[in-house]
């Protein structure tokens, strides 16, 4: 064999030995579509979930104006699991700011009195301490948006969510008398103005219509404590189950489908999850995605 051939064979042999190792690292470098983190401390669980998704820098660029949209809908203190866990919200706010976000806005359009909801949920205080700009929704900043969906033609939506660079949806998992469960899709009711009682007819179609217009960068499902009965208002701590789970995903349909399993249901059982899947907003067969499960 001449020198050229020897070098060629050695190179190929070396590559052959290295290749599976390279592929593995390469595979590990592709971030997952969903992370399901489980542990005792909500701050650690949330942080771990985001880190496993590739870190907040995967989603937030320097100078971004981010909206972190929790559920602050109800006048309930955190142990009733009617609103998003304030620690989860604060952790997300902090991570966004550390990733270089210029501003992180936190708001919701609640059902009960907004002043009480913001204070009693603990979210306003926790988010503010983490550096967020917490504000009440201003009635004048709802603008009619042409939705042109299946059931909704137009609806007033909050301008801050339409103008944000990045949106992080952070709902809490609860039961609901009409939709069976309230997860990520239902959380968009908090950016809707107008008389929301009218949404209750063909609610699944209407939620999917709104979801077509709002594209979250990331959905983080708070399942640290879930409300298993009496939702969405809650009011009995005996209906609260502690799971210690935070699930993060780039696929809003998938994370809601996963959320359904926490209540013994599947994505197909939830009207808007099925419709969202059919509309192409994501997949309810979340097991087919690249999922990472972590227990702390």
């Amino acid at each position, binding site marked *: 064999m001449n020198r050229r051939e020897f070098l060629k064979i050695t190179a190929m042999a070396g590559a052959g030995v290295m290749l599976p190792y390279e592929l593995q690292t390469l595979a590990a470098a592709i971030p997952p579509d969903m992370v399901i983190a489980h542990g005792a401390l909500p701050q650690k669980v949330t942080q771990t979930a985001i880190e496993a998704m590739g870190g907040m820098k995967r989603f937030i660029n320097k100078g971004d104006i981010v909206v972190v949209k929790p559920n602050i809908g109800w*006048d309930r203190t955190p142990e009733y699991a009617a609103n998003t866990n304030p620690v989860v919200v604060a952790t997300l706010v902090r991570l966004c700011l550390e990733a270089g976000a210029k501003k992180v806005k936190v708001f919701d359009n609640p059902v009960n*009195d907004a002043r009480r909801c913001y204070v009693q949920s603990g979210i306003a205080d926790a988010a503010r301490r983490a550096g967020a700009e917490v504000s009440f929704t*201003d009635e004048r900043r709802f603008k009619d948006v042409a939705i042109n969906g299946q059931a909704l033609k137009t609806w007033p939506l909050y301008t801050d969510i339409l103008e944000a660079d990045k949106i992080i949806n952070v709902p809490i998992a609860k039961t609901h008398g009409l939709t069976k469960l309230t997860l990520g899709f239902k959380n968009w009711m908090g950016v809707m103005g107008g008389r929301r009682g009218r949404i*209750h007819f063909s609610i699944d179609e209407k939620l999917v219509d709104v979801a077509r217009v709002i594209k979250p960068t990331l959905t983080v499902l708070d399942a640290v404590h879930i409300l298993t009965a009496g939702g969405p208002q809650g009011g009995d701590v005996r209906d609260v189950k502690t799971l210690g789970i935070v699930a993060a995903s780039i696929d809003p349909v998938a994370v809601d489908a996963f959320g359904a399993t926490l209540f013994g249901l599947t994505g197909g059982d939830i009207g808007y999850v099925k419709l969202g899947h059919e509309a192409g907003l994501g997949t309810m067969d979340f097991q087919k995605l690249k999922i990472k499960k972590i227990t702390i």
Partner: protein
Amino acid sequence: MRAARFFDSILKLKTSNLKLSFLRKASQAFFLLLFLFLFIQTQSKGFDTLGYPVRVFLDFDPLILATTFLAGHAVPKAMLLALATIVLTVLLGRVFCGWICPLGTLHNLVGAVPVRRKAVSAGLYRLKYYLLIVILAGSLFGLEVSGIFDPISIVIRSLTLSLYPLFNRVLMAVLAGADAVGGAGFTAGVYENLRGGVLAFNPPYYLQSAFIGLIFLAILLANLIQKRFWCRYFCPLGALLGILSRFSILGIKVSEGCTACGACAAHCQADAITDGGQGRKSSECLICFDCDDPCPSSAVGYGRLSRRAPLNLSRRGVVTSLASGVLLAPFLRLSPPVSNPLLIRPPGALPEPEFLKHCVKCGECMKVCLTGGLQPTLLEAGLEGVWTPRLVPRIGYCEYNCTLCGQVCPTGAIKRLTRAEKVEVVIGLATIDKSRCLPHSHARACIACQEVCPTSPKAVWLEEAAVKNHDGATVRLNQPHIDLQRCIGCGICEKVCPVSDRPAIYVTSLGESRSPDNQL
């Protein structure tokens, strides 16, 4: 004796170097601003308590103390502060009227408008004493009407129901105008800072708003007829303090240097000057010191009073007032004793007869109500109960965890409750009008009522049903029902019902826990 003379000399203030009328104006400004500050603070910031003593002006009001005691037979401890006002008046004269009362300050502001003022009948000052007698006599028989005429109550009620909403509307329009010029969101920062403070958190709307505003405007505009028109001729609190000041230890007095030129009389706000300038009627004098400046002999001072001008009420007037007060109570209660379904009282309200004996119609509860649901009655509680609070769920429901109305009520007409007590109080019951309800009659899924019901377990329970829609297809949906044992009548269901003009679920007063009769 030496102590008395020492006391005397300190108080015989020579008014040439010390502008007492200026001090008085400064005091009036301070108390008006304090009053407005406390008024603004009478709103929720999201916490369980307010953190500010917003009702303190009412707590110091001796007229409210007197009628609450006579009609209700019990007074909240805080109201004993009113004894301080009585002591102050017995010592110093009607300084409350001249230096403290916020309505008095507003009178002064309007009264400063330079117009030719007509003379008013010299005896009209007696009217306020007759009115006071009517009010006190009536309260002996359980009638509580002092709040309609009490100046503190009038200002709080008028500001709450009319002026503050007007102010909000105007300011919001100004901001909208600025937005139109400067671009959308131009005033967002300003609005966010003012909102929940100077600007109401939610735009306030009240029934009878214009009517109450007009009454208040009339009271203020009367100052164009005579300065301090209300104070001189109508104010029952002024009358009460006037009776006390008849015997006040100190007051405005005129020294021997007075030449009876009468220059002071033209400036007197209260028409209290007698004997060509040499005398003062201590029951009418507001201690404003406006008589001081124009006096060419600097004869006006402040010190121990010796001469007492009589009140001069006619015996006929007194007897008529007494009789009117006594008869007024039964006269106003002639209506049939059937409960009004629209009369949903705030949680913590006393049973209706006691409630009417305590409520002074001050409007504090309506101001503080988170959702704006507490509204003034017109005739729903009878004539006796005009302007008392009732819940109108279509305007605002009763927030489950909130206890603010009981915290601000000065007389205990609405008891102060803990949250645990409050959520057990039933103020009414919800009823479903099936013919209007979407899932019951129109094959449309809804249950917004069940979703928002705050009790645990929910007072709205769902029954799965199969109904036919207009295409003849079968639709499976949930239909709501009320659990009468669990419903507390908060009205959030009525508020969110999408059949918004005449809600398919609505609350009436039936079942209110404070009433032994109004039960199923």
